[in-house]
C-alpha cells in the first residue's frame, strides 16, 4: 500500500513538481524499494527518450536570419538612460552569456552523471549483468579486445576487499566503452571506461556527484580515458577502487 501511494505520484516526483521535503522522502523510499526504483528508472528512461526524439526539427539559417531581421532594431522600450543603460545592458548580456555557458556545461555534465547512474542501476537490475563472468582480470581484460576502440589496465586486487565479478560492453551517448562490476562487502560498484574525446560533455577533474544522485561517484581522466566509479557503497570504498585503477593505468 505504501508503494501504491508513491507510484500514484511517481511522474510528479520525476517532474520535480512536489515540495523539496516530499522529494527527499521519495528519494529515500526509492533507494530502499527495488520495485519503485525499477519503475522510476523505466519512467526516467522514457522521459529521456522523449526528450531526445522531441528535439527533432532545426530551422534553416535563412529562416533564422529572416526572423532576426524582422525583429531587429525595433526596441520597444525606451528607457532614456543613455550610456548608463547601454552599459547595464551589456553587463546583463555578458553575465547572461556566462551563465548560459555555465548552465549548459552543468546541464551536459549532470546528464552524463545521470546516464552513468542509469547504466549502473539498469545493469544490476538485469538478469545477466555481465557478459564475461570472471574474477580474473587476465580473463576479463582480453575479452574487450576488438570490441572497444581502446585498451585499458585492470588493477591487481590482492590485499584489497574488492572482487571483480566481470564485465560487459556499454554505450554512453553512442560511445562504446567498458563496464566492469566489482563487489565489496555485498555492495556492487560499477567502473566505466570511455575515450575522453568521444564523450558528449567536457568534465572537469575531481568532480563530485550531483546532490540529487543517491550514489557515490568519482570520475577522472587519465591517458585519454575517462573513468567513472559509481556505487551505493561509501565514498571511501569508491575512492579506494578509484585509487587502484589510477595506480594500474
Amino acid at each position, binding site marked *: 500500500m505504501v508503494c501504491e501511494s508513491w507510484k500514484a505520484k511517481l511522474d*510528479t516526483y520525476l517532474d520535480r513538481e512536489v515540495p523539496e521535503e516530499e522529494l527527499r522522502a521519495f528519494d529515500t523510499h526509492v533507494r530502499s524499494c527495488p520495485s519503485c526504483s525499477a519503475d522510476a528508472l523505466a519512467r526516467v528512461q522514457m522521459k529521456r527518450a522523449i526528450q531526445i526524439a522531441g528535439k527533432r526539427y532545426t530551422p534553416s539559417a535563412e529562416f533564422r536570419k529572416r*526572423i*532576426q531581421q524582422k525583429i531587429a532594431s525595433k526596441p520597444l522600450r525606451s528607457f532614456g538612460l543613455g550610456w548608463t543603460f547601454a552599459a547595464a545592458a551589456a553587463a546583463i548580456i555578458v553575465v547572461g552569456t556566462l551563465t548560459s555557458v555555465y548552465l549548459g556545461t552543468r546541464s551536459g555534465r549532470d546528464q552524463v552523471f545521470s546516464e552513468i547512474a542509469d547504466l549502473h542501476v539498469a545493469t544490476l537490475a538485469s538478469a545477466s549483468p555481465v557478459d564475461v563472468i570472471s574474477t580474473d582480470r587476465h580473463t576479463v581484460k582480453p575479452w574487450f579486445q576488438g570490441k572497444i576502440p581502446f585498451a585499458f589496465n585492470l588493477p591487481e586486487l590482492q590485499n584489497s576487499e574488492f572482487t571483480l565479478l566481470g564485465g560487459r560492453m556499454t554505450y554512453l551517448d553512442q560511445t562504446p566503452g567498458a563496464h566492469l562490476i566489482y563487489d565489496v562487502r555485498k555492495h556492487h560498484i560499477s567502473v566505466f571506461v570511455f575515450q575522453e574525446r568521444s564523450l558528449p560533455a567536457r568534465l572537469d577533474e575531481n568532480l563530485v556527484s550531483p546532490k540529487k544522485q543517491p550514489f557515490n561517484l568519482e570520475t577522472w581522466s587519465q591517458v585519454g580515458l575517462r573513468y567513472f566509479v559509481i556505487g551505493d557503497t561509501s565514498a571511501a570504498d569508491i575512492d579506494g577502487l578509484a585509487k587502484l585503477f589510477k595506480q594500474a593505468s
Partner: protein
Amino acid sequence: MRVGENLPSESFEQLAIPHFERLYNFACWLTHDRQEAEDLVQETYAKALKGFSSFQPGTNFRAWIYKILRNAFLTSRTGLKATATVPLDLEDEEEALLATKETPETILLQRWDEQLLRQAMEGLPVAYREILLLCEVEELSYQEISATLVIPMGTVMSRLSRARKALRGGLQQQFAKRVN
C-alpha cells in the same frame, strides 16, 4: 528569478530570439509541415512584437510566447482540422494497452529506435502531443504549462498522465505493427 522570467529592461529581441529554435521545433511537431511551421513561427513573432507593450515585464515571457504560438496554431487551418478530430471525451479516455509481454520501456531499452517513438508521438492527439512536448522537450514547469494552455494545474497533471499513458499505448501498437 525563475527560469523563463525576464529582466524588465530587456528588449523584445533579447527576450524572443533565445526561444526561436525551440518554438520552431514545437511548431513542426504541431503542424507536421516545415513550411507551415515557418509561417506559424513568423506569425507568432509578428503577433508577439505587436503585443509586446501588453506584456508585463518581470513575468514569464516563455509561457507568454508559447501561448501566442499555440493560439495561432489553433486558429490555423491545420490546427482547426487537428482539434476537430480530437474526441470530445479526451479527458476521460482510457487507452487500451495491447496484451504483450513487451512494455514500452523494455521496447525502448532493448530495441532503441527513435523512429518508433517519433511515430508514436506523431500519432498522439494534438492535446496530448503538445502537453508532452511542453513538459518533456521544452521543459516547462506545470505552472508554465497551465499558463500556456490556459488550463488549471489539476488538468495539467491529469492530461499529462493521460498523454503518457496514450504514448505507452501508441508505442506498443507501433511495436506490434513492426513485429507483425
